[in-house]
């Protein structure tokens, strides 16, 4: 065993893309054709230096679970709750239990030089077809158009008992990722 934290997949954005898939087999962005599977119970994900093509409060970053390489857009099966924390005003509770098919990692994006977004996730039991797929998130991103840094801290669950083989991270429909490093690690059992 090489170590307790083992790299599984990685994608470095070198030209503009609308989304990044980690794992997901042949649908994965890296071309490594790897999937989240039963090799590990828990996976660790990092996203860093993410720069959007445009900024503003509407330039969010989202996550969807992938099943057999395709994003799962089934509604009423996803739950998430977070603390939204701001450097310049009171924190808020954000939660959605129905209709949403994606998890919000952040709700603003980079727009000026230097500004970027980062996060880490822990993914649990994604490959177990008899259970739902849960994750926790902690993110940080610049919103200096609002003179602040913003963070999301919380968790999410796909309540469907199914095997999820990856995650898709994407931005607002009008934006792309111009930079960023995305990595998927397995935590050795």
């Amino acid at each position, binding site marked *: 065993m*090489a*170590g*307790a*934290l*083992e*790299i599984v997949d*990685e994608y470095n954005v070198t030209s503009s893309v609308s989304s990044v898939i980690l794992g997901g087999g042949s649908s994965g962005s890296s071309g490594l054709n790897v999937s989240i599977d039963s090799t590990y119970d828990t996976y660790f994900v*990092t996203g*860093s*230096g993410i720069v959007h093509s445009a900024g503003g409060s509407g330039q969010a970053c989202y996550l969807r679970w992938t099943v057999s390489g395709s994003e799962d857009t089934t509604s009423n099966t996803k739950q998430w709750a977070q*603390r939204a*924390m*701001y*450097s*310049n*005003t*009171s*924190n808020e509770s954000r939660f959605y239990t129905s209709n949403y098919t994606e998890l919000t990692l952040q709700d603003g994006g980079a727009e000026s*030089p*230097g*500004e*970027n977004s*980062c996060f*880490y996730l822990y993914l649990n039991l994604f490959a177990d077809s008899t259970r739902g797929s849960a994750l926790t998130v*902690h*993110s*940080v*991103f*610049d919103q*200096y158009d609002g*003179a*602040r*840094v*913003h*963070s999301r*801290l919380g968790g999410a669950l796909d309540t469907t008992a199914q095997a999820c083989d990856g995650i898709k991270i994407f931005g607002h429909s009008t934006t792309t990722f111009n930079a960023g*490093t995305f*990595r998927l*690690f397995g935590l050795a059992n």
Partner: protein
Amino acid sequence: MGLEIIKKVSSTGVSSLSVSDIFSSTYDDYLIQQTVYDNASANNDGTMRLLDSGGSEINAAEYYYAGEDTRTYNSFTESTGVAQTSFAGFGYQDASTTTGVGLTMYVFKPYDSSLFTKCLWQGQVGGSGQARWYAGSHKSAETITGLKFDTGSGTINIDCIVYGIKGT
């Protein structure tokens, strides 16, 4: 590949701890673990600053952070900072206690001179007991090579382990 240890430092009876030359082009992101922050000479509430490319402490008003303190003894509180001279929300200890702490921090792309360095940290700290959850951004695009913890008041025993998160 995965998690690789870069440096472990520890010190006793100090008011600050500099951890220099830990960030480089070898890694994009880092995990920092602190397990000792005790034997305080006075009540304190720690802060952290970044070190620039020459190893100098950055004390400009460029630190933005947002967090919450989830306290065992009272209502939870929020902690925020705009254009501060350091990040807050690190070690916290009452005088003469030996309860220790556990602090985990992720640092993202500090060595990239084109980006604002990001930090996410969580810890269980001392005093009467509280957990802390924070996020911060250093609003200056420059190369960061290390960091410095400061007690804010009095001395402490302190340690720090730095890991690089290695990709392919």
